[in-house]
């Protein structure tokens, strides 16, 4: 029997509601028989009456309500129907909840779930990633799980952590990514990056849906040319585990960072800046960035596929990087 990434999210939400009576869910279309645009909350409103609530279409107020509920002693999990609409909740999350601990010493235990990333036909406003614009602000943790086990474990951790957490769950992985189980008897602590595949010729740093792409590229490269890529899954882009990245670069001397997001000021740029400032001497070649182009995300599947970095882009970038 196999489980999917969204099964893991559903299970985590159900267990959170079961284990802690202060957990509530709030978002658009999440309650009733509908259970959310992606069915992540299907059945939960019936199982936990009064604790899974539908909201009006008002992202700013949804996140603001979540902040107030947290200050009132609850552990709210608010849902943006698509991460793209998270920009409308960003003021509450970043300027209000995110600044609260620094300004008062009182943390805001708020989790903001955002289904992110591209799918064929998603188009410019149902495809964005947004981890960089949230991570830009102080006071907010940003989680980007890339495995079924992490989708489960990191969502449960997000609610245990008393600060605002942006939980970016990738829509492409929802039903495509499968595993035997979401249970991991010995999960890595939050904030630690994972060596998803050991290798020696170059380090590929990735997160979210780019991890499976990087792993496929690594397997095909190994089979076709014998080069071994080391794939680092960031798991959380904030906090960013610079130590694990630098240790990997120290082994391989070459660095590529892959991100599905736009290039400007993104996580790829941040990782490269950190390696350049803290470990330039470890590099035998200039670091490489593989991101989407600096345009909105196109709707047509053929254009979208060309816009989104995939394993083929990573393979050709790896050939170039190793040739330097």
């Amino acid at each position, binding site marked *: 029997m196999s489980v999917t990434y969204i099964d893991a999210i559903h299970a985590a939400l159900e267990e959170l509601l079961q284990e802690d009576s202060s957990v*509530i869910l709030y978002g658009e279309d999440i309650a009733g028989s509908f259970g959310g645009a992606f069915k992540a909350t299907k059945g939960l409103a019936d199982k936990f009456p*009064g*604790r899974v609530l539908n*909201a*009006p279409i*008002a*992202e*700013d*107020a*949804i*996140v*603001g*309500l*979540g*902040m*107030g*509920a*947290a*200050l*009132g*002693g*609850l552990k*709210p999990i608010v849902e943006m129907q698509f991460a793209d609409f998270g920009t409308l909740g960003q*003021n*509450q999350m970043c*300027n*209000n909840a*995110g*600044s*609260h*601990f*620094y*300004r*008062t*010493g*009182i*943390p805001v235990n708020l989790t903001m779930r955002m289904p992110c990333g591209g799918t064929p036909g998603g188009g410019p406003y149902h495809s964005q990633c947004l981890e960089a614009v949230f991570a830009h602000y*102080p*006071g*907010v*943790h940003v989680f980007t799980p890339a495995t079924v086990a992490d989708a489960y474990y990191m969502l449960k951790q997000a609610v245990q*952590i*008393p*600060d605002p957490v942006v939980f970016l769950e990738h829509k492409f992985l929802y039903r495509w990514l499968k595993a035997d189980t979401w249970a991991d008897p010995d999960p890595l*602590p*939050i*904030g*630690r990056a994972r060596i998803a595949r050991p290798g020696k010729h170059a380090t590929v740093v990735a997160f979210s849906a780019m991890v499976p792409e990087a792993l496929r590229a690594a397997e095909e490269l190994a089979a076709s040319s014998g080069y071994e890529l080391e794939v680092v899954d960031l798991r*959380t882009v904030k*906090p960013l*585990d610079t*130590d694990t990245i630098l240790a990997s670069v120290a082994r391989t001397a070459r660095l590529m960072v892959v991100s599905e997001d736009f290039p400007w000021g993104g996580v790829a740029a941040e990782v490269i800046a950190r390696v350049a400032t803290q470990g330039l001497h470890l590099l035998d070649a200039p670091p490489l960035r593989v991101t989407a182009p600096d345009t909105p995300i196109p709707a047509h599947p053929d254009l979208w596929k060309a816009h989104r970095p995939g394993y083929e882009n990573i393979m050709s970038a790896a050939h170039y990087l190793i040739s330097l």
Partner: protein
Amino acid sequence: MPEAGRIESVNEQSLQEPARRAYRAMIMARAFDNKISALYKAGKIFGGVFLGRGHEAVAAAEGVFLRKGYDVYTPFIREQAGRCAWGDSVLETARSYFGSIHSISRGRDGNVHWGHPHEGTLMPISHLGAMASVVAGMMLAKRMQGITDAVGVVCIGDGTTSVGALHEAANLIAVEKLPIVIVVTNNQYAYSTPNSREFACASLADRGRGYGMVTHECDGTDLLQTLETMQRAITAARTGKGPQWVVAETLRMCGHGEHDDASYIPAELKAEYADKDPLDIARRQLLERGWLTEEEAAAWDEESREEVQRCVAQAQKEATPCPQDEQWVATSWRPER
């Protein structure tokens, strides 16, 4: 819908005690405003200074009907009188202005940006309207915890009614039927922008009706009328009658901040201030009814000046944050390394 200027309450006498507490808070707030303005002009304050002149009756009428530690109150930039009536000392505001290490934000935020969330006052941000949905969340939490007779008061102005965040929150509050009173203090100017360039509806009460809230209107320079209105609205919210929308008309008898001479306000309007000062009206109302004597009033004036002097002096001599000791961390949780 009550017309402005009319008192509906048959038992005016029941307002005696709240009116006395409200007026005392108004005097204290005015004394503090005068002091902090003088200190600003002497260059003793970092950042901006924002006064509540003209807003005292509205603010005090909010505070006197709320229970500190039980209800939720979101004063913003012109609600010092409300803070006093709620039960917070001017010492807390003075500490915030001076960045004392004993203030809630310890110099990390300042001036009117202070609150004690665990006591029910929220820490505002500068983005207008943002706190309304936060109050909604606080009241939802109370409801889920079985507290049904607490009330939340959201303080906004005419300018904030134009902000999207306020619209989202007001609609949500109405949909969720939360026990919240939104008080719109219409002081005619949002910074330099008059009502005519801020909204096109006949009255801001129309907004409240549009959300499906019970609406109330009053002359916010008239303490007794404002008290009666606020008592009615707060009691309604507290007793399960759903969210309430109060529009109180007044004048901002100062600049937006003390950096602003408000030269854009026409002289004729400014001339009206003389007859509409809420403190003068309140004093007259209390004296006329025998709820206050001249001697008591003079004693309250004196006490307020002394209390403000003492609190400001204390805040001024308290330690301020040391940059070398600052931790520069913005989250309570940090990963193990």
